[in-house]
């Protein structure tokens, strides 16, 4: 339910709507965009980051909240765990039960490996489930993996690792085909043609979707298939540390049953880390669109095992997080709303940015509009925001479109008395995605730690410093499948020697020598308990 002040500001948005329907706000030029990002994007502010003091990336700047975890002591006492009597002994250990982990486990299993998947929450409890917008793949006649490649590189500011982008764009149609065969219900025309639309930074309409439950539809399909295949899945079982053998090869992990607290050991010839991102550590104090479990555990574990991290100074703020109502603060309003024609409008009812600029630019433009130009709307709780003129969708595509195309969004707002098909919604950037992660090669291998693979949001380099919409659902499946296939293929060649946690003991000593380590990590879950 909107307050009287909000209704007053909304009236201006309504007044200008007919005129704005004809208006096309100019796109930013390259220099203009650089300047906007430098001045207003949180990544570029002096006070949000610091160099990490220990480990493989010592000296590199990253957000304070992440550095705190990388400079923490282990939650595991290395000498106190008996690694010689493992509770599980498998070919492939997959850590994480989101889209990347599920794709990796299914693929490794299909290649004949004995697979164990552990996840600290339920299978499918992950950001994958929440991705509403879509998944990119160049499968239309006017498109090609090469054009997709160019879009991805440009979106990432040409900082992406080229070989990873090549894998991403060339595998994309293969992934869509795989999902189609698994019975994933993409939105299609009557003749079977995939419905596709634009997303921010795309030069072709290649965003595939399953109504506005794309991620949920993919995740529930993969979950169903994992259960059908009889793959061993252990829920509420978190990984605390990776285990290395005395030759430095990854040999499994120390796990914890989160309900009993008991430690378990999994021995594995190959290990695939698919633990997701860091939204729930609330970088720079931003609200987040992320899942409850997004606490950077995989980064912490891999770092102690010697893995290098890349681009973790680049954080993606999704420009359209919910700013009102308070109960939905930080939740995502899918980019599809803009894809369908809704404009971003300030408190005076005027556009201030082309709605489908890349996410970093739109976020920076909103922050500028609110704080430098003072033309945002401020709610009674002090939350700034601008209007996303969702009723335009009905004007452009006809009455009922919002409800038909965005049922999830519509329903969420409806619960709090807001009809987004006739009323604009108030939004502000929300912490959405970890652009960087553990360095990988095109098979998902971590170059510094043999036997360790990383897939999904935990991996870095694919998107460079900025990811485009629809390339995350894609990357988790491309690299989940690649890691799963490669890991399974390696199994017969690998012999493990004595398992150790010496690297953890070493890291603890390094942390202590630097006068750090007052806290422990991984943290596994955020702490929202009121003290």
């Amino acid at each position, binding site marked *: 339910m909107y307050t009287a002040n909000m209704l007053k500001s909304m009236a201006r948005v309504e007044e200008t709507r007919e005129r704005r329907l004809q208006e096309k706000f100019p796109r930013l030029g390259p220099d203009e965009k650089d300047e906007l990002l430098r001045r207003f994007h949180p990544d570029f502010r002096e006070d949000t980051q610091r160099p990490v003091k220990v480990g493989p990336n010592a000296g590199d700047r990253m957000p304070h909240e992440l550095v705190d975890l990388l400079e923490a002591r282990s939650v595991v006492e290395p000498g106190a765990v008996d690694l010689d009597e493992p509770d599980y002994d498998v070919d492939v250990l997959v850590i994480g039960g989101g889209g990347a982990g599920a794709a990796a486990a299914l693929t490794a299993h299909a290649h004949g490996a004995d697979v164990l998947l552990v996840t600290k929450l339920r299978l499918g409890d992950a950001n994958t489930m929440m991705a509403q917008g879509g998944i990119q793949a160049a499968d239309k006649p006017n498109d090609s993996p090469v054009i997709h490649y160019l879009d991805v590189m440009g979106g990432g500011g040409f900082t992406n690792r080229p070989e990873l982008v090549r894998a991403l764009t*060339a595998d994309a149609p293969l992934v869509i085909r795989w999902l189609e065969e698994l*019975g994933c219900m993409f939105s299609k025309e009557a003749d079977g043609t995939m419905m596709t639309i634009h997303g921010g930074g795309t030069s072709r309409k290649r965003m595939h979707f399953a109504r506005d439950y794309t991620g949920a539809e993919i995740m529930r399909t993969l979950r169903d298939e994992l259960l059908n295949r009889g793959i061993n899945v252990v829920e509420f079982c978190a990984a605390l540390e990776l285990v290395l053998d005395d030759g430095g090869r990854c040999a499994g992990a120390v796990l914890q049953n989160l309900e009993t607290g008991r430690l378990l050991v999994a021995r594995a010839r190959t290990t695939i880390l698919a633990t997701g991102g860091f939204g729930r550590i609330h970088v720079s104090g931003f609200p987040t669109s992320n*899942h409850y479990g997004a606490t950077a555990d995989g980064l912490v574990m891999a770092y102690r095992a010697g893995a290098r991290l890349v681009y973790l100074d680049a954080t993606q703020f999704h420009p359209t997080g919910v700013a009102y109502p308070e109960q939905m603060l930080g939740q995502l309003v899918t980019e599809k709303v803009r894809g369908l024609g809704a404009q971003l409008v300030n408190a005076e009812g005027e556009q201030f940015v082309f709605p489908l600029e890349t996410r970093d630019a739109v976020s920076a433009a909103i922050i500028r509009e609110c704080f430098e130009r003072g033309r945002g709307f401020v709610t009674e709780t002090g939350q700034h925001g601008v209007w996303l003129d969702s009723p335009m969708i009905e004007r452009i595509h006809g009455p009922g479109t919002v409800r038909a195309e965005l049922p999830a969004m519509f329903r969420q707002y409806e619960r709090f008395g807001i009809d987004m098909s006739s009323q604009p919604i108030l939004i502000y950037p929300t912490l959405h995605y970890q652009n960087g992660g553990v360095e990988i090669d095109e098979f998902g291998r971590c170059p510094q730690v043999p036997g360790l693979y990383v897939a999904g949001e935990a991996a870095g380099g694919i998107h460079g410093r900025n990811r485009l919409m629809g390339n995350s659902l894609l990357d988790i499946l491309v690299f989940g499948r690649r890691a799963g296939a490669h890991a399974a293929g390696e199994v017969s060649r690998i012999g493990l020697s004595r398992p150790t946690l010496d690297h953890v003991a070493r890291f603890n000593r390094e942390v202590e020598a630097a006068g750090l380590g007052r806290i422990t990590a991984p943290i596994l879950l955020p702490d929202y308990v009121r003290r």
Partner: protein
Amino acid sequence: MAQPEPELVTIHIMGKGYRVPKGLTIMKAMEYSGYRLIRGAGCRGGFCGACGTVYRTKGDWRLKVGLACQTVVEDGMYLTQIPFYPANKAVYDLAELKPGLATLLRLYPELPRCLGCNTCTRVCPQGIDVMDYMARAMRGDVAGVADRSFDCIMCGLCASRCPAEEVQYNVAILARRLYARYLAPPARHLAERVREIEEGRYDEELDRFVQMDPAELKKLYNARDIEA
């Protein structure tokens, strides 16, 4: 800016009373009360179905269910979360199924036990007409079930309240997978592109782009044509 003191309401979590600010969701109210959730919290945005909750409101004998992340507390509410529900899921190989009534009945033989009581529809936090899609399932209308159940988040609240012990959400995903695999026409342009990729049609050009000098790539990017 000083926040005004929030108005408090009393809720009872598993029988114990707590004072919490009005307007909080059940999930946030539990955290406000001191619970650090392990089970019963997920996406916190109404997409994952992790936080099914049973509750009763003041002066009402009826038991209600909802998602803790989407349901706002009321004064005098009694509640408990459902951490897990041991409902049956049929195991199958999709490649060997036929999309029709016989398959649904073989995998979920309890299907015709539906009493038509409409409880499932009444409790669905997604507002899905669950009983309607179950009726379609009993007629073998796989496409209808797929369409009508699409917004299901598989929270299982329907099954938790069903007197006939149906597992509606698992029938629904079976129907969706059958529909998408067998009844929706395959995307021909996709099959064609997959064939081209497997034949290596794009390898050379991609290799050239991978090797390309960033300045050159940037020029191509800025000059690229954008589909209207």
